[in-house]
């Protein structure tokens, strides 16, 4: 079969610095092939994608080489020809930034129709094109597409916007689809759905696809052939099977080694048999949102529902769930930044529900929160020493010298050089900033630290470093950690016990090894089957991957909220839909309905 696209010796140069940002890239692409491009951020995979669609940033220019599309040299085409025939027509592009890809002031349907009309150049009636858009929205599994057609981008979730952008690309029936990092901002469950969708669409529309991502396990799932990129050039290219089973280059070997292992690596946690340090009973929180469709009326969003858990001294508790499941609300409730509507909280045997001011002030010292975004959670105009000393300035009567001494010792404990004391955070990396956040939390000698997605903005290497820092500090100070995260691989490595949250409730709570090997709830299984890993996953995606999105939090009733997506419920249409945790085995709690459908 002939080549659809061939890239010969392509190099890109930055006009201002004359550095080559892409060096001597060559590959061929056959029709209907899916080519995976794997590389870390900065490896040039996005630039390669943009060069292929002829949509480079203004400061970049092709310094050598050629891109041939259907046997025609792209460099020989005029800008007019590229605009009329190629870009967005024969070659379509989908990027990672789906959520900002459409104008917020028009409905999604209107903008997809705008593109359809622009390509069609007035040959087909608008009504027919509209039907085409709606049927494509249906193809990418957007629920009730006739209704969603008229909704605005702000009413779409991230996953749905990515689907809409896939429709946008498919409207022109492109020969080549360039999908650049499209799963990056999505939850793993949604990302897995998108990957599945891409494969179905390839078969249906006979499209050739270039699929780039920083995650090898994700790309492996979809691609026939692979290119591994590093620093703007190709490290290795071969068939996907060959590269993953028999890597040649050092970089690829390292890449495979650093990909998180879930099942193939033994984990070993000590049994924690202590008394609970923190007990939460029946926490619930609803928010009132103004109903725009009625005059002066509100509806309720139930963010956290009937949440109870005991946290044992010295343990690492993981709380996982998709975005929007109420994790962050929960962390604000536990840290008493917000009051829960119902329920009690007991810390070290002391009931805090009576809101006694002194008790709460003590509690705030003992429980610290470290947040996700290391850029916006630290003040940029204060010196590092001042930031870290903040807690002491509020809570202690120490003299200035004593405070400085303490700050310096904490700084060295978390691995910050003491010379940084009088410096600002300008230009510091994410992991350095998180170390400052950790030091700021540690200075009050807390007993419990809540880590709300603290590691999710960091790359693999930085994560590892901070995780080992956490366990060092824990050993020294007998700390208790609550990891709140959507990252199952991270939780697998670091937590003794894991609670799975769905729509504001715990649906399963178990020890790490039990949860990963013998989980009891169908939702946990769908989460586990989507983990991107090179391991053999015991949970088969074809059986357990769920469709759709979480239900609207304003519309959840008293029965099982997973019902609408539960693969088991769909297949059997029976079983209990009651809620409430029951203990099926010592320390392994599963939601009632999950026990029935779980096996």
């Amino acid at each position: 079969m002939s080549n659809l696209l061939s890239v010969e010796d392509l190099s890109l140069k930055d006009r201002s610095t004359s550095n080559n940002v892409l060096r001597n890239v060559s590959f061929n692409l056959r029709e209907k092939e899916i080519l995976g491009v794997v590389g870390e951020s900065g490896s040039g995979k996005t630039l390669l994608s943009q060069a292929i669609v002829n949509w480079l940033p203004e400061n970049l220019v092709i310094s050598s080489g050629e891109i041939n599309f259907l046997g025609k040299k792209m460099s020989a085409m005029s800008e007019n020809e590229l605009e009329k025939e190629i870009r967005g027509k024969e070659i379509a592009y989908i990027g990672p930034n789906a959520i900002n890809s459409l104008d917020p002031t028009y409905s999604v349907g209107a903008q997809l129709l705008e593109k359809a009309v622009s390509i069609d150049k007035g040959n087909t009636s608008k009504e027919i094109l509209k039907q085409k858009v709606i049927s494509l929205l249906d193809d990418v599994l957007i629920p009730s597409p006739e209704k969603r057609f008229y909704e605005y981008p702000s009413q779409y979730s991230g996953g749905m916007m990515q689907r809409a952008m896939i429709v946008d690309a498919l409207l022109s029936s492109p020969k080549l689809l360039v999908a650049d990092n499209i799963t990056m901002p999505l939850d793993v469950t949604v990302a897995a759905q998108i990957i599945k969708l891409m494969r179905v669409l390839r078969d249906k529309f006979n499209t050739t696809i270039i699929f780039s991502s920083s995650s090898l396990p994700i790309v492996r799932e979809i691609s026939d052939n692979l290119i591994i990129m590093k620093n703007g050039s190709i490290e290795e290219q071969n068939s996907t099977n060959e590269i993953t089973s028999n890597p040649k280059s050092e970089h690829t070997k390292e890449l495979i080694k650093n990909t998180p292992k879930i099942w193939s690596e033994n984990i070993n946690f000590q049994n924690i048999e202590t008394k609970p340090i923190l007990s939460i009973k029946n926490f619930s929180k609803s928010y009132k949102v103004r109903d725009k469709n009625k005059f002066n009326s509100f509806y309720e969003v139930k963010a956290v529902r009937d949440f109870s858990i005991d946290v044992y001294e010295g343990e690492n508790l993981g709380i996982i769930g998709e975005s929007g499941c109420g994790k962050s609300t929960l962390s604000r409730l536990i840290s008493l930044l917000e009051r829960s509507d119902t329920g009690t909280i007991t810390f070290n045997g002391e009931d805090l529900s009576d809101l006694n001011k002194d008790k709460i002030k003590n509690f705030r010292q003992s429980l610290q929160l470290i947040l996700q975004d290391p850029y916006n959670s630290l003040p940029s105009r204060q010196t590092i020493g001042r930031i870290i000393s903040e807690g002491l300035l509020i809570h202690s009567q120490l003299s200035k010298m004593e405070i400085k001494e303490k700050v310096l010792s904490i700084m060295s404990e978390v691995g910050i050089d003491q010379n940084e004391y009088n410096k600002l955070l300008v230009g510091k990396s994410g992991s350095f900033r998180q170390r400052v956040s950790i030091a700021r939390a540690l200075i009050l000698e807390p007993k419990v630290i809540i880590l709300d997605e603290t590691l999710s903005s960091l790359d693999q290497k930085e994560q590892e470093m901070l995780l080992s820092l956490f366990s060092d500090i824990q050993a020294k100070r007998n700390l208790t950690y609550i990891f709140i995260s959507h990252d199952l691989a991270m939780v697998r490595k670091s937590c003794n016990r894991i609670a799975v949250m769905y729509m504001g409730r715990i649906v399963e709570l178990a020890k790490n090894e039990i949860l990963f090997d013998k989980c009891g709830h169908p939702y946990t299984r769908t989460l586990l089957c989507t983990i991107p890993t090179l391991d053999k996953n015991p949970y088969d995606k074809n059986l357990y991957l769920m469709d759709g999105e979480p239900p609207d939090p304003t519309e959840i009733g008293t029965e099982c909220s997973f019902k609408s997506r539960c693969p088991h419920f769909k297949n059997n249409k029976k079983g209990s839909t009651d809620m409430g945790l029951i203990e099926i085995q010592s320390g392994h709690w599963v939601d009632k309905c999950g026990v029935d459908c779980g096996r």
Partner: protein
Amino acid sequence: MHLAGQFVRRILQGVVVVLITTFLIFSILRIVPGDPVRLIVGGMAPDNLVEEIAQKMGLRDPIPVQFGRYLSQVVQGDLGNSYQRPKNGMMGQGGDFNANMDVEMAEVSDLILERLPYTLQLAGLALLISLIISFPLGISAGLKPKGFISKIAFFISSVFVSIPNFWLGIVLALFITIKLGLLPSIGYQNFAYTILPAIVLAVETCPFIIRTISVSFAEISQEYFIKSGKVRGLTRNGVIYRHTLRNASIPLLNLLGIQLSTLLGGVIVVEYIFDYPGLGQLTIYAVLQRDFPLIQGIAMVTSALYVGLNIAVDLITYSIDPRLES
């Protein structure tokens, strides 16, 4: 989209704003020195007469009582009668006291309605001129923030913003009317009399509009949904007309609402210089004569216009960008 609920809520809020403004003006007029009765009866009148008339007019009652009385009139659609202006248009002479006590006084609503069209015409024309200048300059400056036109736009804005309006008014009257005889400038006889004052006002508003258009155009152009229009296969002009312009128009509409409100309420200096018979000129005389009902009426009408315009602007922006409606 249900704008009706929003609309009702905003109108109610607006009524409250107008009431508060009116009450403030009402009270301040009565607190600051300057007795309107003295001006009505004339400087030669005896003090006891002044007091007697003031009592009769209710001006010695507590302010809240006076305000309640005034409001109950206003609710019935009656803004009261002027203290100073008789219906036939003849002004009383200050010297002979009691001269105009028997004459029927002009109704405030008539006085305002008579002047309002002139002010609307002036404000409308001024806004039109400034939009004609600002749009091309602002848009091209916004699309190429480092380009030549951007520099020109900046230059023009700086010059316009530094010209005092009274000076420009006098200079234009001198050159265009007197030296060149192109356009008339003092008083009002036909539409041509509106042009020079409108130009002066346009020069005042232009810099703000140019700046707003160019900044919001430059900002929106950086949005991903604009930049990615090219790779989605849309044409450059299509993206600019359908998306950049639409999104950039929201800050512009907000600015225009404020500018137009100011033009309607307070072009006092320019109307005075050109002796233009608008609301501004009426305000000046009303204040000089302590004509309480007239001042209150003008304040109420202009604040209602201000509130109404801003509600209209908000509703338009809601319909452009549904996210704003919350």
